[in-house]
Structure formats: C-alpha cells, structure tokens
C-alpha cells in the first residue's frame, strides 16, 4: 500500500530539516493528487534546486512542483518612520 500522503509530508519536512543539502525549515509542502507542491523561500537558487532534489528522492511516483522563491536582497526598501 502506498504511504498515506500525510506521512509523506512529514517525512519530506523532516528530510528538508536534516539533509545537509537542504537544511531548511520554512518550506511548505503540499501533496495533491500525484503532485508534491513546494512553496516558501530558499536562500539561494542552489538551495532551491537542492530542496527539490531531496524531495524528489523521497516522493517516488510523484511529480515535484517547485514553486519556491529565492530571497530577494535588493536594497531599496522603504524607510519607516517610528515617531
């Protein structure tokens, strides 16, 4: 019998926290039909790709849809005056 999807989500999140390639706790993992959808933010493009790789190894038979974004680091944010 295939692993219930809820356990798969847990196993993926555990792997993302502990696998040296990922080390990311802030990934939102959803299993829907035959897809595993990843959302959240990765620090770099390389980490984003590594996270999908780790998930792909665990989610055998599922299509991994990587919708994670990469941290934006531009400098032109607004200044907030706290008066």
């Amino acid at each position: 019998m295939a692993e219930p999807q809820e356990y798969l989500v847990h196993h993926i999140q555990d792997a993302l926290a502990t696998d040296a390639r990922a080390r990311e706790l802030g990934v939102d993992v959803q299993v829907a039909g035959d897809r595993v959808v990843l959302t959240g933010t990765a620090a770099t493009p390389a980490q984003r790709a590594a996270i999908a790789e780790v998930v792909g190894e665990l989610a055998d038979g599922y299509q991994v849809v990587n919708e994670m974004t990469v941290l934006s680091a531009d400098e032109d944010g607004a200044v907030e005056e706290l008066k």
Partner: protein
Amino acid sequence: MTRVAAVADIHVGVDSVGRVAAGLRHVNERADMLLLGGDLTRCGEPVEAQMVANELAGVEIPIVAVLGNHDHHAAQTAEVVEVLEDAGVTVLDGTATTVGVDDATVGIAGGKGFGGGFAGANATAFGEPAMKAFVEETKREAARLQDALVEVRPRADRVIALLHYAPVPETLRGERLEIYPFLGSHLLAEAIDTAGADLVIHGHAHNGSERGVTPGGIRVRNVAQPVIQHAYRIYDLGEPAVREAPVAATG
C-alpha cells in the same frame, strides 16, 4: 534622526557568496547601525559564520546580532560567536550594548528567545521533564532579556530589544496557527513590556507579517528576509528625547 537597518534569517550557506554583501552596498550611508535578528547561517557551522563575516566586511556602521535556531544546529555556537566577534559584530545573548548616534545613545538588549506559544494557547512547565525543559528555556531567555533591558535603559536614550523568536502573534500572521508555539512566546513580550523598550526586532517567522505591537504598546517588527523581501528594512526612531540629567547629589 536615528536610522536602524535590520534584517534576520539571511541563512548564509557555502553557496551564498556575495548575495548578502550585494544588498549591503549602501547601508553605510542609509543607516546608523545594522541589526541582525538571528539565523545568520544555514546550519551554525563556523565556516558559514566566516562567510557571514566576509559578507559583512564592507559594513562600516556598528553591527549588532543575536543567533537563531539555525545558528545553534551544529552545536558550535562559541566558535560561531568568536568568528563573528572577530569580524567586529557584537553578538548579544541575554546581554546589552550601546551604539552612539550623534549625541544620542541607543541601547540594544538582545537574545535568541524561544518558543512556547501565546497567552491562552501556550505551553506550561507541567508533566514530562522534556516539556518542563522546553518551557524553562523560554523563561530563562525572557528573564535574561528583561535583565539586559533593565541594565541598559539608564545609559541609553532609546532602547531596542533584538530577538530571533517572536514576542507577539501579530507578526506571525501568515504562518500556520499550529506552529505558533514553535515560533515565539508571550513570555518574551511580557519581559519587554515590564522592562520597557522603544522597538522590538525579531525574525524566524518566514511566512509571517512585518508589523505588530506588544500588549504594552511597543512596536514589533518581523524582519525575516522572506517577509521584508529586501536586503534590510530601515526604521527611523526620530530625534531622541532629551535624557533627564542625573539628579545632583546633595548634602
């Protein structure tokens, strides 16, 4: 005018060369200090801390940081702190420091903080030793933060509390409710409200919201980089209030 640049959760790993530095090119002209609210590294390895130091090399304004849970993962926090301090970063852990801005003094008291949840849905030190240890860690972090705030207040015109974990649930909006107890604790807000502060900076909650307020009315800002979507945010604390002169000794 006191301009405080702040960011948290930059998660520097060995594949991050140049990313953070690129975002800090103009911070020296734009702000008077840079506050880092924890999770500077991805796994808390000293080699990652050295990469953080390299990324911060161009920053000439004072840098004050706390560590986050990621910075604790490799259980080498002493080495991580040493690398950061050698690079000129003041790392707070239940301690306080001051930064001079023109004629004013800004006090920053900081610590990692910890979880436990928020009033009405919070963990209590009851039952198994592991549960008690969890809550005691938060209580200890809150008490040390409060002591640091109390200690720095008399020698500062403005006081900022710098944390990794969240002191209020408002800045967690966007996170799943089930994980709030792992994101922060109301004990931190209680400590800050008791001691007093002008601003609270934290990170940790990547899917949260930037703005909140403590029950006592102190502004809270979640500067986790995925939340602010920029290299840092700048908060202008305005002109400092004139500090009361010490009462002259008589007799």
